Every structure is written in C-alpha cells, then in structure tokens.
C-alpha cells in the first residue's frame, strides 16, 4: 500500500515562534523549542515528531513569516 511521508524545514532565524504552525498541524509534528532561541530571541519551531509528518503543508500555509518548506514523497510498503 502506498504511503505518504512528509517532512518540513523551518528557517529558524526567520521564525518568530508564534505557535500557529504547531496549532495548525493535524499530526502533532511540530513544537516550539522549549529552551533554545534564535538570534532574535524567539523559541523557533521544529519537528519534535518527524515520523508523523504527512507533508500536508498546513503549517506552512498558516505561517505568517514564510519560514516553513514542505517536502513530500509517496512510498510503497
């Protein structure tokens, strides 16, 4: 059976840690860095649960700063 695998990259210096991508993700993939901050002092987003990503781009769609790139592949089991 074909399966969709996804992944995102976050431009961590552009990210302002607004959390909207985290809320938008249907698979609970993203999280804000609990401690680490970028050069502007923001807790940027990262994939805490990359295996769950389906590459739906919900996170990138709602991202106000255009910092997320989305990748998707279809694989056969």
């Amino acid at each position, binding site marked *: 059976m074909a399966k969709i695998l996804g992944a995102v990259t976050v431009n961590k210096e552009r990210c*302002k840690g607004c*959390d909207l991508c985290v809320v938008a993700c249907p698979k609970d993939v993203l999280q804000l860095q609990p401690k680490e901050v970028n050069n502007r002092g923001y807790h940027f987003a990262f994939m805490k649960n990359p295996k769950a990503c389906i590459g739906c781009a919900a996170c990138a769609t709602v991202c*106000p700063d255009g910092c997320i*790139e989305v*990748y998707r592949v279809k694989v056969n089991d």
Partner: protein
Amino acid sequence: MNINDIIKPENLVYAKPRLLNDNHMHYCPGCSHGVVHKLIAEVIEEMGLEDKAIGIAPVGCAVFAYNYIDIDWIEAAHGRAPAVATGAKRLNPENLVFSYQGDGDLSAIGTCETIHAANRGENIAMIFINNGIYGMTGGQMAPTTLEGMKTSTTPYGRRADLNGYPLAISPLLAQLDGTCYVTRQAVHTPVAVRKAKAAIRQAFENSMNGLGTSLVEIVSTCNSGWKMTPAQSNKWMEENMFKKYPLGDIKNTVK
C-alpha cells in the same frame, strides 16, 4: 525512510513565494499581515504579473509592505490609497493596481476615497485587513472595533453611546454599482488561507479584466493589540469578530 531522503529538492511541495523576499518582517509574531503578504506574492507570481503589479501601501502596520513584496510600490498618505490607486490605474490601465489597507486607513480616515473609488468602479483591487484596532499606533479604537472590545482609547470597552457602532464597510461597498466583487475572508486556518488566496486571485483578475472594483476584506487578528497569544487571538476572532463580520462572498457579479 530517512528524513534526509525526504528533504530533497525534487520532493519540495511548498515554499514561500520568490516575490516574498528574505527581509525579516517587522510584524509581531503571528500577525495576519504576513500570511496576506505571502498570498499576494503567490498570486502575482502565479499570474505572471510581476512586471505589471503596482501596490499602494497604506499608513499603518503595513506601511512597509514594500520591504517584503518585491514589486513596485507607492506609499500613500493615510487613507488616500484608493485615490493614489485611481491615479496610477487611470494612467496605466494595463497595470495591476491594488491597494493594501487596514481598517483605520480604509474605513476611518480614507472612507471618502474608498467609497468614491469603488463607486466609480475603478479597476483596482483593495485588500482590506480588518483586525478591529489600530495596530501601529499602539492599539487604539478603530471604526471596526467591536462593542465591548477594550482598546487603549476604549480602556473600559467600546460603548455605542460614546463611541458609535462598529462599522461593517464591505456590505456598504457591495451596494455600489461600481463594485464587481466584495468578499470577506480570513487566514486563521489552512482552509481559510486557501479561500483567501482564491479571493485575492479573483480580485486581481477582475482588475486586469477591467470589471470594476474588487474588495477582499480579511478579518484578521492583532494579538499584540488584543493582548492575547496568536492562537488565542484566532479563537477569539472566530467567536467574536465573525459574528459581526461573517465570512463569505457579499457580492460577486463576475461568476
């Protein structure tokens, strides 16, 4: 499959549009402006109108829109964007001319210019960010501020007897013969963002096809002014703003 096998150029399905440049946007975290900027950049890119687009920037938080969307821009005086757009479009009818305005700009100080540009049916698109507050100057009451809503100039909440009623300007503009498309959208969910993008695209197409004035209102958040987190703001917007400013097409004579 390893994550590095997925993150490859051939698998890229979404990236910010090229016309949204790499400048760090000055907007607060979670601000709706960023999403709308991105959509405008995407639509201009997809329509191949980069060399035709003239944006009219407002006074307000989006005053620096020209720093982020890599097209030609004219920065207008507060509220005057529809008049500036009129001049630009009348003299350059083959160009895409759109204004980008907030609620203070479009529906307070610029009401006269807004209504008359729309009434003349200028072939322009107006992108209207309605977050019910003056963001840039520090969260003062806007015409669109909801009753009871606290702002820095209505610290105990807006009272109709003191401050008048919230102004829904889009239905007003929809009554004018000059408008061909008036719609109200939001950008708080992926589905809403896609609809808003389609609306902006239609507005730009209308402008290029000379069909009259199009208005795309984006009901938005101002989490700094509202004093909430971005996520809380979205929720508050759904529960409160959408009651006064319900989403959907208000007028569409094109389809």
